[in-house]
Structure formats: structure tokens, C-alpha cells
């Protein structure tokens, strides 16, 4: 079977103009522009199977968008191979473009001054979707995303969240098999973020479409993606299950307890992070966690006990720090 997405030794180097400060440098750059090579993506290898939902993580400027642009055919790789369903994206073949879609949280393709439904119609014509297929898909999207009241309003009258729902819908009218979602939840409130996440999950389950998603919100990634790819300074640092990321990059667990006796002495057990009267939390190395827990339960009168990994944000941050 052909992988949905394949990248092999992908590199992208940009020539960026550089100029010094001040008017003299500005005048000089009018005539002679100096440029500098910036490696945005270095030797990226990845393979995504059809139907997978993969989270693509990295700080700003890590190379996420550059990689997505190479996979959607907007950028030509400097070297290396990019393939989507066996097509070379940069060739921008008709059959390839019919099967993908691109959603960018910071930009919209809906036309500003006219009702949403007319922008939908424009995409229907561009993608040559038949009327019957169009109506069927539209009905489904309207039901899933709750668009009923929005379709006949001009886009400029919609809230950010409403607009994003419509942006996602317009991008799916041709039933793409591959979704590139670049920060689709950016700027949305928590409820709307959750709704979009639920929608993406449902869409993936119903259609078997492959999804590559970038987001700065870990909640998106935790809810949607079993697998994550972490990219930093243009290179892939981690590619695997989210659980494994947690195991690999966290050496500690947080063990919290609730005691029946508020006066009990907890010194000598391990690194104590917080202590109130009945509550306490320890930071314990992973491999000692089991022994530590049984020791606590044996020695003390414990009402409640939880073992947790640190928040995913902290883990990701530690990944980036380790590579810096």
C-alpha cells in the first residue's frame, strides 16, 4: 500500500534578504540585495499511513509550515523527496490537488463580503463536485458543524469561531482524503476548540481521511493524535506515540496523597513538592515510583493517592530545551 504521506531526506533552504540597520544600509539594499541562506527544514523523514491523525508540533519557526507547504506543493524542496499518495506535490497535478485540502487558521479563503454559501458554491465549481454529491456533503457538514444559521450570512458578520467552522467546511466539500490543518484552532475559545476537535475526530472516523495537524494547543494534540512528530530547528526530534514521548522525555512522576492525619512527618520519603495539612505531592523518579507508592501505603494512613505524569506542555518544553 502506498503511504498517504512520505518524506525522505527533505531539505528546504531559503534565501532571505539581510541588511544592516540605518538609512545607508537601506539605500544600499535598493541596488544590491545581500541574502543569506537559512535552512528551514533539514533532513526530514516521515511516513504517515492512510487514516492516521498525526500531530505536528514545534515552536514558531521550527519548520512545520515549511514542511506542510512542501507537502501541499506550494514549495519545491531544495533536496529530498516528498510524496502524497504517490504524487510529487510540487508538480501540482490535478489528481493530487483533488485529493488534498489545506486549512490555515490565520488566513481565510471565504470571500469576505458575500454569504458563506456562495463561497461554498465557488469551491463546488472549482472542484467539479456534482450537485447531488455537493448537497449530500453539505448536509453532513451542516449537521456536524451546526452551520445552519451561518450559511446565508456574509462572512464579515461572523465571529472568529463561526468563520473557522465555515473555513473547515469549505475546505472539505470535495471530500479530500488528506487534510493539512495548520493551526485550525488558533484564537478560538475553549468550547469552540473542543467542537472542532470532536468534528475532526468524527470526520476521520467516518471518511478514513488522513490528517496532519499543527497546533500550539496541547489539548488539541492530546484529544486528536495518537502519534506526534516533534520538529525543532528544522529537524525531527521525536516521531511516535504520544505516550512514548511522555515516557521518553520525563524521568519523574508526580505522586499526590491525601492523609487522614495532618500532622504526620513526611521527611525522608523523597522530594516533596507541595505540602498542606492533609495534601502532599512528591516528585519521584519513574523507576522508583512503584516501590515508593507501596512504601507510602504501608507506612501511612492514606485516604487517596494519585500517580501522574507532568503536564504535556512541560514535557514538550523539556524536549525543546534538551535539543537547544
Amino acid at each position: 500500500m502506498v503511504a498517504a504521506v512520505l518524506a525522505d531526506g527533505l531539505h528546504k533552504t531559503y534565501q532571505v534578504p539581510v541588511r544592516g540597520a540605518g538609512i545607508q544600509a537601506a539605500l544600499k539594499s535598493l541596488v544590491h540585495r545581500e541574502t543569506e541562506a537559512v535552512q528551514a527544514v533539514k533532513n526530514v523523514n516521515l511516513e504517515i499511513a492512510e487514516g492516521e491523525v498525526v500531530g505536528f508540533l514545534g515552536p514558531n519557526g521550527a519548520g512545520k509550515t515549511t514542511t506542510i507547504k512542501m507537502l501541499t506543493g506550494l514549495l519545491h524542496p531544495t533536496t529530498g523527496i516528498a510524496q502524497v499518495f504517490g504524487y510529487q506535490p510540487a508538480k501540482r497535478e490535478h489528481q493530487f490537488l483533488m485529493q488534498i485540502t489545506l486549512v490555515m487558521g490565520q488566513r481565510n479563503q471565504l470571500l469576505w463580503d458575500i454569504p458563506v454559501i456562495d463561497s461554498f458554491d465557488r469551491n463546488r465549481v472549482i472542484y467539479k463536485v456534482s450537485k447531488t454529491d455537493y448537497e449530500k456533503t453539505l448536509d453532513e457538514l451542516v449537521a456536524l458543524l451546526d452551520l445552519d444559521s451561518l450559511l446565508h450570512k456574509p462572512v464579515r458578520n461572523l465571529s472568529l469561531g463561526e468563520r473557522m467552522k465555515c473555513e473547515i467546511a469549505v475546505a472539505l466539500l470535495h471530500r479530500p482524503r488528506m487534510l493539512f490543518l495548520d493551526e485550525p484552532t488558533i484564537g478560538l475559545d475553549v468550547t469552540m476548540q473542543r467542537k472542532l476537535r470532536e468534528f475532526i475526530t468524527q470526520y476521520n472516523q467516518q471518511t478514513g481521511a488522513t490528517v496532519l495537524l499543527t497546533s500550539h494547543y496541547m489539548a488539541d494534540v492530546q484529544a486528536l493524535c495518537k502519534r506526534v512528530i516533534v520538529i525543532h530547528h528544522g529537524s525531527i526530534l521525536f516521531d511516535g506515540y504520544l505516550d512514548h514521548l511522555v515516557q521518553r522525555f520525563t524521568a519523574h512522576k508526580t505522586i499526590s496523597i491525601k492523609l487522614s492525619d495532618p500532622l504526620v512527618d513526611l521527611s525522608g520519603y523523597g522530594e516533596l513538592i507541595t505540602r498542606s495539612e492533609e495534601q502532599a505531592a512528591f516528585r519521584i523518579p519513574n523507576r522508583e515510583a512503584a516501590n515508593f507508592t507501596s512504601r507510602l501505603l504501608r507506612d501511612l494512613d492514606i485516604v487517596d493517592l494519585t500517580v501522574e505524569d507532568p503536564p504535556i506542555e512541560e514535557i514538550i518544553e523539556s524536549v525543546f530545551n534538551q535539543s537547544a
Partner: protein
Amino acid sequence: MIEFFRLANVFLRIGAMNEMAYRANFWIQTFESLLSMATALATIAIVFNQTDSLGGWQRAELISLLGVYFLVLGTINLVVSPSLGRFMEEVVDGRLDFTLTKPADAQLLVSISEFRIWKILDVILGLIVLSMGLLTKAEATSFASALVFGITLLAAGAIVYSFWIILATLAFWFIRIENITMIFWSMYTAGRWPVTIYPPWLKWILTLLVPVAFAVTVPAQALSGRLTFNTLMSAVLLAVALVFISRWFWKLGVKSYSGASA
């Protein structure tokens, strides 16, 4: 070609809806079109109060030329200028990414992406004035002249469009170049008069650098039967060459496009 009409149809409809939303524009446009046409006609009237011919052109012929001028102007303002203007904006803000990921010819999509339908008034006025010029002329226009006129008008359309595409394509490299279309507009105004009446240096600029001569003067010459075979052939050859060159240039531009940084 079918693709063109299919897409043009939907964009035209959307353009119409867009403009209907702002009704006042229709009246402003009507006023503007009538006023500029009246001014132009009055200027011709003043000139011909002093003389019977201007560089060999009769009054009726100049009126036809003015008709062609408005016809071409209206067509540019109807779709070419708004669409390519929008394209240049999309290069700056990165929305072009959406256009380039669509399964349709990108050059076609950007060329017809926006219609200012009220500009059709200039086209209609141009046609009326053109017919007026032809009707008041001493001798009737022959079928052959009309046919040649049709050919030169098609060539004019192709030349002007290709010229605009080449200017707009520069946005792929220089990003902010909204002002570049001024190169065209500053020269186009000179097209109200036949380029043959201008001093040689200006005539060359209007023929070779900015193709105003081929856009307006040549079709008008065809109507008055003063077009030489050589000029006709150069108009057709230039049109064909520019269509291919602009297409090649556009593809080069798309290749080097890197997208606005996210």
C-alpha cells in the same frame, strides 16, 4: 475553454452579488463613465473646430478611436485590473496558497477571480460611441475592414492581458508592487489619440514598451481602412508571442513562489 466559461460564470455571478451589495456604486459608476466620455467627446469637438483633420484622422475616425479606447478600458477595469490587483494582494498576505492548491489552472483562476460588473458601462458606452463614429463617417465601413477590426481587437485583448500578467507576475519576486500597474495607466491615457500624432520617441514607447498602440490605435486604423498588412501581421504575431511569453513567465513565477511566511 469550457473550463474558462464554467469558472468565469461562477466568478461573474459572485462579482455581481458583491456589487449589488453596494448599490451606490452603480450610480457613481454611471456618472463617472458618462462624464469622462462627455469630456473626451468635447475635446474632440474643440480640436475639430480648429481643423478638419488631425495627423490625417477625420473627426468621425477619432470618435471611433475613442470608442475603442473606452471598450478596451472597460474590459480591463471589468476583470483584468481587479483580478490581478487582488492577486497581488494575495501574494502579500499569503492567501495565494489557497489558489495554488486548487485543481484548476492557477493563471486562469487569478485572471478572473474578481469582476467589477459596473465597469461594463464603459464597454457599452465604448460600443455606442464606436457605432456613432462609424455611422457619421463619409464612406461606409466595408466587410473586410470590419473583419480586420475584429482580428486586431482580439489581438489587442491578448496583448493587453499578457502585458498585465507579466507586470503582475513580478509580484512573485518583489512581493509589494501594487504601483506597477501605474506603468500601464500613465501610458494608456495617451491612447485617446492616435499614437501616429505623437513625436517619434513617444510613439516608440507607446508601441514597444507599453503596447497602447496595439490596444487602441491599430484597431481604429483597421476601421478607417488605413491599416497596412505589415501592421496587421505584427499585431497578430505580437499577440501570439506575448501570450506564450506571459504564460512561460507566470509558470516561472509560480515555481519561485515561496509564500508569505506564516
